[in-house]
């Protein structure tokens, strides 16, 4: 949501006015991070609006309608809804990036690539935590908490974490891959990082699809009468 994102950037502005550099991070870096995350979050929930509701839909047995149609179930479920509020995040990402220092065409292209990578990582994470409902039953609350944790952790500088926390952020809750982007993808275009991040995002997505397909075999119909609008 646009206003929410603006207030967070204002918060960081006030923070960095007092402490100009935090472990190598400046206000410009945190602005780029918010631009990337806002854009990625926007793309995810505009295109795949149901991704945050997956656990609840599985638990309530609402996948019946999609299973009857000759389309890819996961893709059909995800694109069946679009979030209006997420347009605000997407717009915010694009606008704030233009205020985060000098912008060239090359940098803008890399930024868009970073937004798409962020969206792919976020979508994959949401599919994985949503698919937990196939195995755990009603895990809507757990999925929401994990998504909140991901969103929260992805919007702070990775440089403040160390040891086990940093390891978790780069593996179990891969929010650290997103928060690494401002320094390693946008400010200094690091091809090695770009390749690794791309491989990671694609790998995570394939894993998410596999977990969903695996879980779908355990799916039980809710015998619900639903109307698709």
């Amino acid at each position, binding site marked *: 949501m646009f206003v929410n994102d603006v207030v967070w950037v204002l918060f960081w502005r006030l923070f960095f006015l007092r402490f100009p550099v935090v472990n190598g991070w400046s206000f410009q870096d945190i602005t780029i991070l918010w631009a990337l995350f806002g854009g990625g979050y926007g793309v995810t929930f505009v295109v795949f609006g149901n991704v945050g509701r997956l656990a609840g839909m599985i638990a309530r047995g609402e996948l019946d309608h999609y299973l009857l149609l000759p389309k890819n179930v996961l893709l059909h479920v995800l694109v069946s809804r679009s979030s209006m509020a997420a347009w605000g995040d997407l717009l915010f990402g694009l606008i704030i990036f233009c205020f985060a220092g000098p912008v060239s065409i090359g940098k803008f292209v890399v930024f868009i690539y970073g937004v798409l990578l962020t969206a792919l990582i976020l979508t994959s994470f949401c599919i994985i935590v949503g698919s937990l409902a196939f195995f755990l039953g009603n895990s809507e609350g757990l999925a929401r908490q994990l998504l909140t944790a991901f969103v929260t952790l992805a919007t702070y500088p990775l440089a*403040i974490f160390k040891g086990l926390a940093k390891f978790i952020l780069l593996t179990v809750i891969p929010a650290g891959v997103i928060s690494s982007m401002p320094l390693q993808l946008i400010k200094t275009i690091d091809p090695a990082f770009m390749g690794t991040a791309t491989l990671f995002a694609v790998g995570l997505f394939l894993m998410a699809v596999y977990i969903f397909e695996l879980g779908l075999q355990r799916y039980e119909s809710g015998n619900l009468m639903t109307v698709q609008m």
Partner: protein
Amino acid sequence: MTERMAGHTTGNTTGRMINKSLHLRFGKYTAIGRISFLTNMAYIAELLWRTVFMALIIFIFSQLWAVIYSGTGALVLGGLTYQQMIWYLVMTETIALARPRIDALIDQEVKNGDVAYRLSKPYSYLLYHYVSYMAEAVMRLVINFAIGSIIAYLTAGGIQVSLSAILLFLPAALVGLSIEFLVRACIGLGAFWVEDTESFLNLYEKALFILGGMLIPLELLPETFRRISAVLPMNFVLYRPARLFAAFDVQAVWSMFGGQAVWLLLLAALCAVVYRAGVKRINVNGG
């Protein structure tokens, strides 16, 4: 002697009548509060689950402040040591996460007409909601306080807290939550005039976030923001009670409670005016 006895008997009768009248007047609110408290007790697991978010925020900010304190080499920032800063954060989060969404409930009752149904009941609409709000808020506050203190102790270690600080923090937090209730009630009652009150709440929440000192104490904000915050109620909801706990200062006690009392009265008056104006717009068409 007889006169004295008669006076004593009359005094007893009057006392009983006053007691009965008070019981009739306020007993129902005690019952409403008790019911709300017991209802929320049934969902205690969910309340505990919510503290996970508080733990996450405290963990992130303990890391962030550790970097700041070590990076600047300062022992005290904004009048707080590292340990005090984390305890300050825990207290702001303790209060912030104890606030029930009363605005959404009032908003819904106004929109779907339930407010008209409640008007026929022998209680004040606003007092009814205040009591049930506070019963839930108190429960959340106690849970957040207990779990938040454990998290703060594990992440930053203990701080020296006087008994006065603990005893004064709780009423300060409760008055802060009452101020919060009045703001939220006014926003919810806005549904008498506008379709969507959510946007007003969002604006208030964002103001509380910065000007209420939710994540950083007001001393670390620029002068302009501190001045704006000083004339708004947000700092009496989070910043002042939390600051009182983390770095107790006798001088700040009276100005805090004084300011809270002024805002409580002003907002209660505003809430009553908004409610009366809103109720006049209700049309009951049988049914």
